[in-house]
C-alpha cells in the first residue's frame, strides 16, 4: 500500500528534521524540502492516472480541450507556487513567501485570460 510508504517517509523526514533543527537549522530545512519532494515523487504516477481520467471524463462530456488544458496549467502553477510558499514559510521568510503568492496569482490570471474573455463574450452574446 503506497500510503504506508508515504507516511513512513514523512515520519522519518520529520524526526530527522527535528533532530537537526537546534544544531543546524539550514540542514533541517533541506531535509524538510527533500522529504516533501520525495513524497510527491512517490505519488506522481497515481497523479498521472488521475489527470488522464479527468481528461477522459472531459472528453466524454464534450468540453473543449483547450479549456481543460488551461485548467491543468492553473493547477500546475498553483502547486509549484504552493511548494515555494511553504518552503519560504518553513525558513521563516514570510515576506518572500507572500511575494511568491502574489506572483502565482498574477500568472494564473494571465493564463486564464482566454477563458474569462470567452465567458464575457458569451454573456454579451446572450444579453445583446
Amino acid at each position, binding site marked *: 500500500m503506497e500510503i504506508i510508504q508515504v507516511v513512513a*517517509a514523512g515520519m*522519518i*523526514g520529520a524526526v*530527522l528534521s527535528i*533532530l*537537526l533543527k537546534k*544544531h*543546524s537549522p*539550514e*540542514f*533541517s530545512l*533541506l*531535509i524538510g*524540502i*527533500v*522529504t516533501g*519532494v*520525495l513524497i*510527491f*515523487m512517490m505519488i*506522481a504516477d497515481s*497523479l*498521472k492516472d488521475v*489527470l488522464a481520467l479527468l481528461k477522459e471524463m472531459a472528453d466524454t462530456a464534450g468540453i473543449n480541450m483547450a479549456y481543460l*488544458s488551461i485548467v*491543468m*496549467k492553473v*493547477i*500546475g*502553477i498553483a*502547486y*509549484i507556487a504552493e511548494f515555494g510558499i511553504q518552503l519560504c514559510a518553513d525558513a521563516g521568510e514570510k515576506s518572500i513567501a507572500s511575494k511568491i503568492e502574489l506572483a502565482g496569482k498574477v500568472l494564473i490570471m494571465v493564463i486564464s485570460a482566454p477563458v474569462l474573455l470567452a465567458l464575457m463574450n458569451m454573456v454579451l452574446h446572450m444579453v445583446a
Partner: protein
Amino acid sequence: MDINIVFRIAAVGILVAVLNQVLIRAGREEQAMMTTLAGLVVVLFWVIQYISQLFNTVQTLFQL
C-alpha cells in the same frame, strides 16, 4: 527516487554539526564556518538536482 537521499542529507548534517562543535571548542572558528559552508554546498548540490527533477515531472504532468 527513494528514502536514501534523506538519510544521506541527515548524515552529512550530523557530521557537519559535530565537526562544527569540535572545531569551535578547539578555537578554530573560521575552519568551523568553512566546514559548515562546505557541507551546505554539497547538500545543496544534491537538493537542487532533486528539485529540478521535481519541476520537470510537474511540467510534464500538467503540460506547462
